[in-house]
């Protein structure tokens, strides 16, 4: 891996985003096309300037990426559609990065989009009998993981509420977020109970949106240049009953290295850095407990220290390692195929000092993390 990275480095030429939210009068293709247009414009390129496209989506159906590039009159190149659950955009990005590193292309377009029904996500992942048996309930799985954190990591219901409070405080400043409202701990704890210990405001909303990133082979030195130092995708190892692959059974609910930890290890090795070198993080806060679990799995804190890490304010905007300055998925909502690339858009702006009121001062190394159905986990490291 290192050898290839030495030969070809990959940089981000431009990014684009369609706001995450609800857009009743807009098709998913239209949202994807707007994000692609914005990214191409930012990269100052057009049709014919990129040699391949990778599209992440879960619910858009057959030939999703093709439909977007057809609408834009930009087909003819190879277009590859990628489904990797919540990490779909990250998977698409990692393929694009690898293709450039391999010398196959000079410039590729990576985009993702989604238009999802509201409420609990219905997924073709679950066989009909699992739905009929009441066992196909995503928030219930999240709740069990949160309960385990409460049993083993000193996490309390207050901590779970505090994650949501923190991320919403950040999200107020993000014009691309769905919910731009400050909540108190009491608001979060007092919202409707979904699956104990998780209340409604501790869970992100599946929604709609799109994001796009133009990648190219790095050339010369340029001020404000953002490099992709690593993009690692991993799936789960067998054994864990609580894993994101949501099995019907397992041997334990921990002790197996998680896909997030596997992806993080691979990404740090690829980038030649460690978590202590990172200045800003966007991570998977599908629910409040998931953010705390990610602290431990990414090495932001040690095992069992997630609650204490939050208490110390380490992941606040003013802390040592701000987490989810964009407001996270709790504020933005989660359009599956777009969410991972939405993180990349945010971190690109953070590294260029263009994040406005949510800017993390002086950030030069950023980490993006997504994990979900599959299981798939993706960790991307960007460097200025």
């Amino acid at each position, binding site marked *: 891996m290192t050898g290839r990275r030495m030969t070809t480095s990959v940089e981000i030429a431009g990014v684009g985003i369609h706001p995450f939210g609800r857009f009743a009068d807009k098709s998913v293709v239209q949202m994807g096309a707007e994000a692609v247009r914005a990214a191409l414009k930012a990269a100052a390129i057009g049709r014919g300037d990129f040699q391949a496209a990778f599209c992440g989506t879960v619910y858009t159906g057959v030939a999703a990426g093709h439909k977007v590039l057809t609408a834009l009159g930009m087909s003819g190149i190879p277009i590859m559609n990628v489904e990797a659950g919540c990490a779909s955009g990250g998977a698409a990005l990692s393929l694009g990065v690898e293709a450039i590193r391999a010398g196959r292309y000079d410039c590729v377009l990576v985009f993702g989009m989604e238009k999802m029904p509201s409420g609990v996500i219905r997924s073709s992942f679950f066989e009909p009998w699992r739905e009929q048996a*009441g066992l196909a309930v995503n928030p219930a799985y999240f709740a069990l993981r949160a*309960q385990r954190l409460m049993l083993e990591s000193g996490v309390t219901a207050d901590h779970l509420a505090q994650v949501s409070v923190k991320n919403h405080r950040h999200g107020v400043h993000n014009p691309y977020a769905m919910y731009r409202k400050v909540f108190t701990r009491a608001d979060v704890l007092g919202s409707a109970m979904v*699956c104990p210990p998780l209340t409604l405001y501790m869970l992100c909303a599946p929604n709609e949106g799109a994001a796009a990133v133009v990648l190219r082979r790095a050339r010369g030195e340029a001020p404000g240049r953002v490099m992709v130092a690593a993009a690692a995708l991993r799936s789960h190892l067998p*054994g864990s*009953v609580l894993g994101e692959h949501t099995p019907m059974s397992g041997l334990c609910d921990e002790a197996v290295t998680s896909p997030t930890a596997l992806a993080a290890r691979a990404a740090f090795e690829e980038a030649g850095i460690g978590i202590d070198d990172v200045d800003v993080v966007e991570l998977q806060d599908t629910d409040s407990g998931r953010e705390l679990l990610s602290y431990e799995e990414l090495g932001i804190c040690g095992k069992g220290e997630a609650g204490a890490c939050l208490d110390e304010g380490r992941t606040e905007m003013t802390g040592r390692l701000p987490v989810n300055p964009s407001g996270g998925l709790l504020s933005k909502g989660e359009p599956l195929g777009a969410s991972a690339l939405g993180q990349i858009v945010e971190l690109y702006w953070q590294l260029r000092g263009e994040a406005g009121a949510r800017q993390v001062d002086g950030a030069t190394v950023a980490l993006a993390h997504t994990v979900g159905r599959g299981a798939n986990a993706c960790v991307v490291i960007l460097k200025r």
Partner: protein
Amino acid sequence: MTTATRVAITGGLFVMEGDGSGQLLGGYCDGCKHYHFPCFPSCPYCSAEGCVERRLSPHGRLVLFTSVRNRPPGYHGEVPYGFGIVELPEGIRIVTRLTEADPARLRAGMPVRLVLTAVQTDDQGRDVVSYAFAPEGE
């Protein structure tokens, strides 16, 4: 309660006895000596082939639990209901419904037993039965 009006939610998950009791059907791997559920010919842990079907103990202990308050997509049964993870003596942990929907009445480690309960009726009026665990003694 008779078996005539009861039909399993899908084949291969459990056996139903005439008295309404039952047992889950796991897969056992002679290579790594571990159980999985539902049974599949290949071992999900060590990749060995030739796993065999074994009846699992109907008694276990509760590991983690929550409850589902709103009817999830594709589910037509009653809410709220319990949802959790149960460990069986064979060393396997099973994702399961719980008959007890109030988390205040559950605790980690408490003994539980398998029950077969109706989750809906089919178009012929038969009870569609799935598995759940109930606190021991209830």
